[in-house]
């Protein structure tokens, strides 16, 4: 029951509870005897009922009763009346157990099981639920069971929606009711039931509704949860999309056998050294997907057959779904100039983790130029010793700017078909932004600031393909900086968000990205080519992000940040040189993503905190940040 303080037990209570335990032990012993000997007599079954009334959490007793019911139902003289009476007995026992503890998982589950037998009236269940939900309108067991009953009864979502609404009107601090509302609406969206056909009609009304709760009491969290769900519904497109790829559409890839390439017509963004005679093709989706394989993604080129391609998901959890997929395309070791066409999703099979099919087939093509290895320079390559020292970097010159402009536009894939249909999303977000600016002018409210930051970020992300810049990034960064001060408990969460927005800002325009691109030139090296290093050092980053724009990076300097995790770095398949010097990585587990970086040759992890703590907190840390996200 909510809102009732716990009282310390009095001595007489303790005496009573030990007497109860005594009795319970006796009952239990006897019960186990019956259970093990498969005795299902009337007395034995009644004993289990007695046990369950005292302790509804006794799973074994519930299972015993299930066996007993099966036993009775299989008796030769079984008739509809006796079935009904047996099952009615079960319902009665469950009800008594629930009276004892209406949050007993075992009891609610047993009730479902009895009803699934199909001999009991489901109408009684709603009446029972009304009683329980009146006693505690926020009991999620009851709400769960209610969904089951409503579904069995084929009660319309609209009726249930009305019920949840009534409960919300009684007391809007009710997570369960808001949650049920979101579940019901999702079901209606999916069914495309009349009136719920369009999210664009329903969501603005829902926003209006939740504003009433949020403005009335911004300190109440349940409303914010529902708002977060609405925001998610507004922003997320159902169907997964290809966000970016490497190589980019229309790009030229130069594969060289050694560290040098001549032919200055090629951008350093797409020149690649390859020892293995192959190069990766990376697909970066906007959400985790599964089903990427040689039948859903076809690669046409003159020198290789599609069937050989093996698509591999890149995710930390080794699951068969991921945002990033990679395949290695073998190239002949001779001079070659060839066009490669990659078609994604022309045959169905790519499915998002939410179950939506990739339904916007796309195609990109690029040219491959192979420059075979020159034997005599291979020694230089082996002896090479890259050192990321300050004096080795030069600001990336303007001489190649032309080619970079082209390259920059190739970094992401524009999905025109999606954006045309989403005017309402813009309108909804713009309205929300205005609304929460107003709220913040009234009250200083942490969760209001966080929501505004999320809204602005979502708006920017949505408008980026048109505006080519992130209009609100400064404001978002300020909000997160503010939150770090206001709410130190969740500092790390805000810091992570801040880092990601900062990275998005850095990668949002050619100009800002160029400020972080440096030409590496080691005076000691005999190499005549100067690789590009992306330097994201000294940015106080606690997390990495914006990977979809960074798939091309081969040399990355992340030194002097506050990284505790490098989650997502596995997307950067071309990385050959990485500095993580002076960060806050605490364990080797935190380096897990590096295992997927097959091209990585140079790694600097000096000055971290690996081994500082005897307990590896990496995974716990990342779970915590997920929890924070939920809690906020």
């Amino acid at each position: 029951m909510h809102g009732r303080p716990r009282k310390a037990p009095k001595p007489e209570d303790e005496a009573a509870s030990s007497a109860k335990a005594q009795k319970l032990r006796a009952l239990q012993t006897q019960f186990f005897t019956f259970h093990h000997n498969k005795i299902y007599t009337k007395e034995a079954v009644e004993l289990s009922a007695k046990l369950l009334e005292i302790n509804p959490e006794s799973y074994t007793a519930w299972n015993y009763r299930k066996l007993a019911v099966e036993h009775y139902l299989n008796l030769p003289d079984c008739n509809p009346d006796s079935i009904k009476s047996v099952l009615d007995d079960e319902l009665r026992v469950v009800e008594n157990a629930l009276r004892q503890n209406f949050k007993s998982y075992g009891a609610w589950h047993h009730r479902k099981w009895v009803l699934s037998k199909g001999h009991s009236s489901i109408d009684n269940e709603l009446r029972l639920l009304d009683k329980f939900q009146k006693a505690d309108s926020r009991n999620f067991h009851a709400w769960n069971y209610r969904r089951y009953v409503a579904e069995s009864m084929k009660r319309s979502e609209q009726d249930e929606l009305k019920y949840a609404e009534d409960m919300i009107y009684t007391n809007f601090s009710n997570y369960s009711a808001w949650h049920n509302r979101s579940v019901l609406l999702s079901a209606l969206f999916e069914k495309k039931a009349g009136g719920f056909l369009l999210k664009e009609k329903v969501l603005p009304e829902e926003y209006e509704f939740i504003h009433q709760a949020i403005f009335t009491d911004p300190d109440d969290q349940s409303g914010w949860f529902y708002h977060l769900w609405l925001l998610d519904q507004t922003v997320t497109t159902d169907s997964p999309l290809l966000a970016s790829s490497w190589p980019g559409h229309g790009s030229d890839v130069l594969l060289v056998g050694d560290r040098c390439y001549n032919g200055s017509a090629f951008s350093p963004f797409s020149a690649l050294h390859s020892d293995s005679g192959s190069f990766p093709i990376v697909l970066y989706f906007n959400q985790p997907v599964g089903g990427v394989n040689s039948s859903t993604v076809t690669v046409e080129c003159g020198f290789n057959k599609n069937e050989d391609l093996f698509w591999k998901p890149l995710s930390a959890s080794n699951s068969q779904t991921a945002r990033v997929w990679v395949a290695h395309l073998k190239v002949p070791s001779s001079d070659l100039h060839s066009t490669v066409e990659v078609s994604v999703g022309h045959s169905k099979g790519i499915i998002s983790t939410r179950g939506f099919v990739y339904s916007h087939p796309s195609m990109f093509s690029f040219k491959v130029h192979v420059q075979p290895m020159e034997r005599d320079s291979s020694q230089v390559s082996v002896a090479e010793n890259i050192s990321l020292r300050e004096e080795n970097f030069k600001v990336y010159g303007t001489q190649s700017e032309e080619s970079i402009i082209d390259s920059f536009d190739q970094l992401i894939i524009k999905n025109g078909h999606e954006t045309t249909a989403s005017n309402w999303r813009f309108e909804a977000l713009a309205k929300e932004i205005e609304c929460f600016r107003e709220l913040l002018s009234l009250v200083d409210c942490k969760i209001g600031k966080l929501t505004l930051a999320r809204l602005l970020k979502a708006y920017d992300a949505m408008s980026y393909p048109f505006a080519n810049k992130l209009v609100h990034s400064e404001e978002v960064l300020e909000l997160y900086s503010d939150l770090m001060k206001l709410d130190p408990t969740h500092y790390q969460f805000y810091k992570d968000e801040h880092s990601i927005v900062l990275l998005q800002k850095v990668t949002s325009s050619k100009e800002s990205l160029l400020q972080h691109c440096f030409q590496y030139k080691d005076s000691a090296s005999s190499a005549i080519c100067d690789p590009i290093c992306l330097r994201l050092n000294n940015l106080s980053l606690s997390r990495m992000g914006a990977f979809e724009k960074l798939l091309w990076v081969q040399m990355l300097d992340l030194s002097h940040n506050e990284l505790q995790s490098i989650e997502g770095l596995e997307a950067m398949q071309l990385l050959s040189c990485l500095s993580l010097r002076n960060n806050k990585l605490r364990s080797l587990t935190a380096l897990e993503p590096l295992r997927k970086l097959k091209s990585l040759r140079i790694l600097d992890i000096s000055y971290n905190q690996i081994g500082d703590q005897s307990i590896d907190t990496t995974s716990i840390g990342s779970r915590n940040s997920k929890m924070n996200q939920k809690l906020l």
Partner: protein
Amino acid sequence: MDDIPPYPPIDPTTFDLIVIGTGLPESIIAAASSTASKSVLHLDPNPFYGSHFSSLPLADLPSFLSSHSTSPSPPRSPSSDDPNEFSLLEFATRPLYSSIDISTFSPNLLDQHSRKFNLDVAGPRVFFCADKSIELLLRTGTNQYMEFKSVDATFVGDNKGNLWSVPDSRAAIFKDKSLGLVEKNKLMRFFKLVQGHLAGEQDIKISEEDLQSPFVDFLNKMGLPPKIKSFILYAIAMADYDQEDTGVCRDLLKTKDGIDQLALYNASIGRFQNASGAFLYPIYGQGELSQAFCRRAAVKGCLYVLRMPVTALLVDKDTGCYKGVRLASGQDIFSQKLILDPTFKVTLPSGSSPPLPLKEKLPFFSLKDDKGKIARGICITKTSLKPDISNFLVVYPPRSLFPEQVTSIRLLQIASNLAVCLPGMFVLYISALCNDDDQGKKLIHAVMNTLLTVPLDSESNAAVQSETAENGSAVQDETSESSSGGPSDSGEEKPTLLWSALYSQELTLGQVDFICSTPMPDGKLNYNDLIDTTFKIFQEIYPGEEFFPETSLENPEGDGDASPET
């Protein structure tokens, strides 16, 4: 009351206390004194309990009002020739009601069922679920004699006939359709501030300086928009006078008092599980309350005699001290103390000089009414003012109906489920403080014209218009009145008036002396102030006694053997 039946003599003839009149203050004092083991005789000239606090059948209300509207008759006979050692001081009645105006638009229906109505003389009145009267009822066990139902909502009215629900709780603010988001936020924050202050949270304490400043200034300081300010001042704190016009405001609320009112309101909501709103109303009408205390007194040994007028005060010839009263039956009854209904006043025989001690006390007898008057109206309709809801309060804040309106007008609609009228009918109680009768009539009429269709046929329009005490001149049958609703301003059908009583009531204060007078019903919505005054009177007459000591609960008696009716 003209033909008084012969009375059996009262025995004993000496009491600690004689209480005349069974209005609420008198009844509470009778009960408290009996509880304190005093011998009490409780008399009432009326055949019913409650006096000015009673609930009366429809036909009896006009006669009760008019019997208290006449000027006192001159002393019937000089009393100096009394044979014994007492001087007699005649009782006279005081005119307490004026401009009584009864209009009947459906005589057939209402006359036949007069007894089905229980009309409060002192309406509109409700109990806050957490107020002093409820505490007193519970503490004394008197609640066993009464049953209550919830008054479901409070609305604020405007001059277009709209009724806006008052967002008086978190859930109500959330649900409200008329407030904007910013207004909701400001109002809820204000409520939280008040709650925090009341809960003694350190960081949200309202400063002493603010507490002593006018409440309206504090609300302004909190940046509350006019609409919300009006809700808080008049529909929650129940202020009577325009708080923003110090020229006319006679009850300028301090922040402290305003917060206390909010606390009372807040504690009232949700106090009882089956009461959805902040208020309660007793089944069978407000008269039940006085009667319940009489029953409580009777259980404790108080002696009750109804239909017993008192003719004169017995005063010691030599000392001038009060000795007792002479009843209409001719019997003399003696007591140490006397409590007097505000109906009565003592007149001195002309020419004779009063006994010295009494003379000194005399100023106390002149119950001055510098508080002005209260205009009251009772209307009966066959449809609710608002569909789907039957028992509710409506507040018209100052200047909401017309510019010269300086006081709040309150309206209480009570339906037949509270056993105050015929099934399917509704009783509307309206009241407003005023300076004089004309002003009062204007206030009551303003509400009636906004909310009701007053039948104005050529044959029956005299009553409401002429503001005289004409009774029954309106003749109209039921069928024609439902069709005579006519087009109203708002386009919606307004309830049609079946019957109305309008009157002004004097606001006399209680007086404390060796003979004490109780106050008339005040202009408040609840009984809090009256209970405070009653408590003071009790303390005055029995300074050493506790007012309903806690132990009185230990002996909760049934009402079997000693009901007040005996």
